[in-house]
């Protein structure tokens, strides 16, 4: 990053964040990274199975946006949602136990990595049909609006979801019916192995959103201050105007799509470049250090704390139990059937 640019970034941090806030976000980013690395580790040890999608490289988005919500604002996310779950206040224990398939997990171990749900935190998944949760989010927004409860729903999805008909129908209905929903598109430029330019004829996603007359803004998903500023405005807009909003956060997935992915579709060099130059945690640490807002000791402390949290989560998950099969036969319908 050019030094001029860097100054601007730091300027913006000072403008948008208090030292406390800035450090909290850093800590949360570190927690997310630790959670993801712990998950990868547990996957390789066979404790976590199925699909596992990591958020490494995308941390600033969830770490910055989620804390801006009211606790009761409803979140709808994808299968790449550990970070969002953690940020919405679900404990690492509960998340890890879920990934271990234990009944102590927030979804009783029925869902695993892709299906984290915790209604006490207004966390509605963990949805694994790409774009299938967008209609749920706008429906929730309608319920909020009809009940005048001043809540908004927030819906995260990847840029790959935009090609689905559900995106189109949801954007249109959200705008037509003035639904208070914040769409957050995490544009990491790949949907599995399909690059954005092979998935969208119009790669300017803001233009796409605007074609529904939905307000839209793009942010650099590695720039915490920029994300915060835009997300705050967006959330306020959605809540006060009772209208949808589309926020694009440009980012890069530094790891494979899932543990099954051998990444034939992008070069090692490309990934290495991003890892080396644009690891968002390293970038952010650098910025805060330049500002003199954190020092290496504090960072070490944060890392240790996060590691301890994740170690504890793993022990908790490890000690958990599998749901009884008879119990697992419940909850298909309510009542006798």
């Amino acid at each position, binding site marked *: 990053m050019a030094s001029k640019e860097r100054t601007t970034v730091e300027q913006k941090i000072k403008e948008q964040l208090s030292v406390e806030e800035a450090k909290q976000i850093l800590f949360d980013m570190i927690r997310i990274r630790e959670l993801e690395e712990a998950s990868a580790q547990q996957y390789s040890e066979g404790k976590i199975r199925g699909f596992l999608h990591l958020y490494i490289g995308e941390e600033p988005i969830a770490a910055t946006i989620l804390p801006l919500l009211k606790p009761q604002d*409803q979140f709808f996310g994808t299968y790449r949602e550990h970070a969002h779950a953690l940020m919405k206040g679900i404990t690492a224990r509960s998340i890890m136990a879920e990934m271990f398939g234990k009944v102590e*997990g*927030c*979804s*009783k*171990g*029925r*869902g695993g990595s892709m*299906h984290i*749900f*915790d*209604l006490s935190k207004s966390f*509605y*998944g963990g*949805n694994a*049909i790409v774009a*299938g*949760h*967008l*209609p*749920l*989010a*706008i*429906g*929730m*927004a*309608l*319920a*909020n609006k*009809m*009940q005048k409860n001043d809540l908004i*729903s927030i819906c995260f999805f990847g840029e790959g979801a935009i090609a689905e*008909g*559900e995106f189109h*129908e*949801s954007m*249109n*209905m959200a705008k*037509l*019916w003035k639904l208070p929903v914040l769409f957050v598109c995490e544009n990491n430029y790949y949907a599995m192995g399909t690059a954005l330019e092979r998935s969208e004829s119009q790669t300017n996603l803001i233009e796409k959103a605007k074609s529904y007359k939905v307000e839209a803004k793009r942010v650099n998903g590695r720039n915490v201050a920029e994300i915060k500023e835009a997300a705050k405005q967006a959330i306020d807009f959605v809540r006060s105007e009772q209208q949808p909003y589309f926020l694009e956060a440009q980012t890069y997935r530094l790891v494979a799509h899932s543990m099954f992915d051998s990444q034939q579709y992008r070069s090692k060099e490309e990934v290495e470049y991003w890892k080396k130059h644009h690891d968002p945690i390293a970038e952010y640490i650098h910025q805060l250090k330049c500002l003199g807002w954190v020092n290496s000791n504090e960072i070490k402390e944060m890392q240790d704390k996060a590691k301890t949290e994740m170690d504890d989560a793993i022990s908790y998950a490890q000690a958990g139990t599998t749901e009884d099969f008879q119990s697992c036969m*419940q*909850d*298909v*319908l*309510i*009542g006798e*059937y």
Partner: protein
Amino acid sequence: MEKTTYRQALHDGLYDTLKSDPKTFLIGEDVGRYGGSYAVSKGMLQEFGEERIKDTPLSESVFTGLGIGAAMGGMHPIVEIMTCNFALLALDQITNNAGTLRHMSGGQITIPLVIRISTGAGRQLAAQHSHSWEGWFSHIPGIKIISPATVTDARYMLQAAVKDPNPVLLFEQAALYNMEGNLEDVREVDISKARVLKEGSDISFITYGASVYKCLEAAEELEKLKVSAEVIDLRSLRPLDMPTILTSVTKTHRALIVDEGWRSGSLSAEIAARISEECFYELDAPVLRVCSEEIPMPYAKELEQKSMPQTSSILQAAKESLHGGY
């Protein structure tokens, strides 16, 4: 007993539901200004206003999913999908969300949603507007499926469905909208039970929806031949009321299932399989089925009628069962 039509009964049931439960609202294509494609919601927009009678764009997948989301948010949405033929566009939402989210979330999510869908042939609407897929959809766990055959059920099933905390698909029988019938003197109905519409001792006709009347007609014909057929209106397709079915078959020892769905993989297959599993040794003859021909529904009247179960084909199958045509 009051006379009414199936359409009017549905209309009145919808009206009462909207009147009594402020959390309900109706969404779907042309439910408002057009008055509903089958006129069931005629006048509702004027009565309840735009907030509660919501015309949607042509977006079956998303307005269905929106209903699911609103139900998760504590409302009691009533979604209308014009016909089951278009419901395939919403089947991902119905199956992977409505039918799945409660279980997958460890029992946290509740979806008090009703989806109204018209179904069935007989009006020469051809291959993209005439099928009966309610039996097909009854493969999906996590939802209930009901279908009224009588004006009484048309009148009260919706209210029961709205009170049910589960996603309920209510299939309206397109062939019956204009049917007149006597409204029974009740204030509510139980949507979990099948109903014996005519008692009999020699053979059980198991059916639902518009085919009920063909079965009753066939049963009447059989009376002339001194054969006593029992006619069961399933009412609920998922879950199935097996006790009522098994009690009947255990009594009559013969079963004939009449189902307007395509034969292979229809609901009739499931019922036949269960009867064999659960009271095989009570059976005096194989369980038989009268279903629709496995072709896209043709337009020409004669061809359409020949493709569907008819009183005559029911009679013929009944005779086969009774006399052992094998």
